[in-house]
């Protein structure tokens, strides 16, 4: 077996992770979290965005005790205003510091990234 080396020394890219799915019904949200952890391990710059049902991932007061699932609510990121309004949520419904951006502002931020990954 030859050893695989990842030479990321000095390479720093701007990543955006776009969460679009509610937290527990599918594996998407957890998989995006895995990608975020990996990008952190390689010391990359990351922005975490929440759109559509992804905004439910950061809803306050999640209690997964009875379902036996891991509560993995992320505690940071930017959310799209249109997505939260469509779902009857406001900025104070979220776990902690989130920045609320309009679609146009989020589109601008997205255009600044080197890599955009969604799930």
């Amino acid at each position, binding site marked *: 077996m030859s050893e695989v080396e990842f030479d990321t020394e000095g390479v720093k890219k701007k990543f955006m992770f776009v969460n*679009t799915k509610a937290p527990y019904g599918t594996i998407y949200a957890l998989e995006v979290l895995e990608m975020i952890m990996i990008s952190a391990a390689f010391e990359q710059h990351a922005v975490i965005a929440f*759109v*559509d049902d992804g905004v439910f991932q950061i809803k306050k007061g999640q209690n997964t005790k009875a379902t036996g699932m891991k509560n993995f609510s992320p505690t940071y990121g930017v959310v*799209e205003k249109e997505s939260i309004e469509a779902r009857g949520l406001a900025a104070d419904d979220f776990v902690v510091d989130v920045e609320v951006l309009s679609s146009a502002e989020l*589109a601008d931020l997205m*255009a600044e990234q080197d*890599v*955009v990954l969604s799930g």
Partner: protein
Amino acid sequence: MSMLYTVNKSPFERPTLETCLRLAKPGSAVLLIEDGVYAALAGTAKSALVEANQGDVTFYVLDSDIDARGLAEKPLIDGVESVDYGGFVDLVEKHDSVHAWL
């Protein structure tokens, strides 16, 4: 910065294409693949999604995914360009960045 977006969900089941278009900058391209190809069909309840954005965004559809779903005889929305796998690669090469919406 020109973006290529791929959308692989049916517009009848998921809001993925709608969200993609809400966040797409003018001049970008959308390639409909897998169940995303249903959005390229003319005369459906969701055709307006593509039609309303054709000025700002160029739409492509992957022909093998159309064929796989028995849709080869169904008319596509005017202006939606059909591409094969080679065309997919050309689109990736032509744009600065690719964002795969899931």
